[in-house]
């Protein structure tokens, strides 16, 4: 594609741009798992880890997916998904959490906190995670209670980031 415009045409536009900041798209924005390079991730709170495994388990079942099918959809190893759901001491790779967040359409940053990859600074999320973990049982089909617990938790996850307190 070729653009034929005069020098004046371009210069008028460059001047008109002024001190405006211009950028677009998630790749330019990407407020994802930040500050890992600056401070080591804190040890994940137990309740968060339980909630993360439960969350993946319920989200998978809500979609009626087997472990393999979720592995396909997320381009992850089924064995890793198994570990996430079964082993609460397992800390997944950031890429894994990233793929899961994309697939489940929840904010990466919150899910990272849940997985114990970044420190969750707000008591609210921790509290919700405990409540969620306590409410959900691992049975074959999602019960009504599990569904509503899951819905409520997704709502909390998707809330705007709270301001961090220094």
């Amino acid at each position: 594609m070729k653009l034929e415009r005069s020098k004046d045409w371009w210069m008028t536009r460059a001047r008109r741009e002024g001190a405006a900041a211009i950028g677009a798209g998630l790749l330019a924005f990407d407020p994802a798992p930040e500050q890992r390079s600056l401070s080591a991730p804190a040890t994940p709170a137990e309740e968060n880890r339980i909630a993360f495994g439960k969350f993946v388990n319920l989200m998978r079942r809500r979609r009626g997916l087997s472990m393999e099918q979720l592995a396909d959809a997320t381009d992850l190893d089924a064995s890793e998904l198994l570990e996430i759901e079964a082993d609460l001491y397992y800390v997944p790779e950031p890429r894994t959490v990233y793929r899961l967040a994309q697939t489940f359409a929840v904010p990466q940053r919150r899910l990272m906190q849940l997985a114990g990859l970044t420190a969750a600074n707000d008591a609210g999320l921790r509290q919700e995670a405990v409540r969620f973990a306590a409410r959900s049982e691992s049975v074959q089909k999602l019960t009504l209670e599990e569904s509503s617990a899951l819905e409520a938790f997704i709502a909390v996850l998707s809330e705007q980031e709270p301001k961090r307190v220094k």
Partner: protein
Amino acid sequence: MVEVSTIYLLDVVSGESVEAELRDAIEPAQIDDWVTKWQPALLEVLQSLARRGVPITQWPQSWHWNWAQKTAKVQGLLAFRGFSVVARGETQGLAQIDLTKSGREPSQASKPLVYIDYLEVAPWNRPELGAAPRLRGVGTALITAAVALSEEEGFKGRIGLHSLPQADAFYARIGMTDLGQDPAYQNLRYFEMTAERAHAFLEEE
């Protein structure tokens, strides 16, 4: 075959014009520049913010990323259609284009448009990063390219994009319609340019 258009940018310090190339592709040279020049420049600003004790919450939005992940994604740009602005032997701005999306604005709902998946200006040209920017007009040139491509594709100049928070005002100023925050895109605001507005944007002097 990469088409190269000659465009002009404004040197902010001298007020002179600078000849530049608008290339209708992102090539390996751009990825090299991103890795060897953009990233170090960004890290430098980041370090100076940290040294000055600026809390992370107050850092520019685009800093809260995972570098390894971002680098991998930028390398992936080679697989897509895009534009780059090159001046003084360096990449000054990048944009990636998606031709499969359609409009949301009521007057052009579900009509095809050029969606700008990614638009980033070199850190040394960004006014929001604190230091004096070197070149002005890079972002405008990339938007212009997207509108022109939209015309060429028969999309009548319609474009759409998810704006970075610091850029909302610019898109509103060039006449794009603000369709509000999009929860599917981390609440970035979605903007669209209508065919009518695009025509004016390309033709007016």
